[in-house]
């Protein structure tokens, strides 16, 4: 019976990683689900849902030549997953400021305490080597309502971090 696996793959960014990996999986008869792929710190990273009758060993084999040729690191793991399960975020939070240790931990802990469930988080370190800045976009669900979240946002702000909270008002038509 075919079950979902999660492929985690990382390696120095170079052209062709996505095309070659997905072609190898297609040739092995695997079906692809949702994915997040992006460049982080000069590496290319893939998180990809793969559905196949093959075992993890067989899947490893099917991408092995690409993984070796492109000097990638990869692993498949069994996951409990299904498609068509999107949750709709109701709040977007942007945090930015001078990069310093603890900024992510502090911000996300305050958000957690306010009942905020993160669905999506993307962050970048930008600016210069001497004066890096940290920028984080989060989308999620304010399970305890927006008042609790606003208080958390105020607390995150106290360290000179800029925080912007915007409701996501989804229009369905």
């Amino acid at each position: 019976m075919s079950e979902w696996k999660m492929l985690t793959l990382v390696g120095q960014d170079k052209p062709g990683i996505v095309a070659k990996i997905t072609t190898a999986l297609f040739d092995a008869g695997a079906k692809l689900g949702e994915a997040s792929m992006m460049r982080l710190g000069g590496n290319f990273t893939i998180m990809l849902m793969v559905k196949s009758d093959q075992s993890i060993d067989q899947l490893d084999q099917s991408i092995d030549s690409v993984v070796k040729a492109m000097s990638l690191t990869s692993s498949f793991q069994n996951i409990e997953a299904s498609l068509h399960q999107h949750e709709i975020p109701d709040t977007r939070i942007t945090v930015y400021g001078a990069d310093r240790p603890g900024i992510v931990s502090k911000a996300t802990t305050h958000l957690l305490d306010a009942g905020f469930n993160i669905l999506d988080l993307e962050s970048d370190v930008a600016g210069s080597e001497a004066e890096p800045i940290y920028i984080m976009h989060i989308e999620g669900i304010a399970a305890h309502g927006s008042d609790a979240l606003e208080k958390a946002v105020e607390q995150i702000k106290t360290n000179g971090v800029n925080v912007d909270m915007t409701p996501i008002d989804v229009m369905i038509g």
Partner: protein
Amino acid sequence: MAVLDILKYPDEVLKQISEPVESFDNELLAFLADLEETMRAGPGGVGIAAAQVGNFRRIAIVDVSAKPKIKHNGCMILINPEIKTWDGMKIGREGCMSVPDYTGNVIRAEKITLQACNAKGELCDYECEGYEARAVQHELDHLDGMLFLDRLVSRRTDLFKRKKYK
């Protein structure tokens, strides 16, 4: 009255361009009633276009009045609608009854003015902003065979909110 079946993408007929309404008769009134009922039956549906039920006439209904604290024109029956002016731009999240289980970011004008006939065929003028303007633009796209999928911007795209300077 009846709740009509909503066409779902990838049904290619959703890409068809709708034709203007020519006769304002009882058949039209009956269809408008069904279309409105179909819109209200959809979870959270604040707008619908005739094309979504496979009727390719230039008809849309928008009613955002159930949303608290926003400006609106009540239930707008928009027949042969035409947007006259666009002002400002804003990113917002949209979903569509014809595209289940997906929402995405789309840039729309913040304020629009439009002209459309009502159910009796009388030409009416409307000013819409914000959420309502977004709904109108989404529905009118359907009349031209456009889905919000055709206008998606990356989820990473975020227009920093313009600060107000005093």
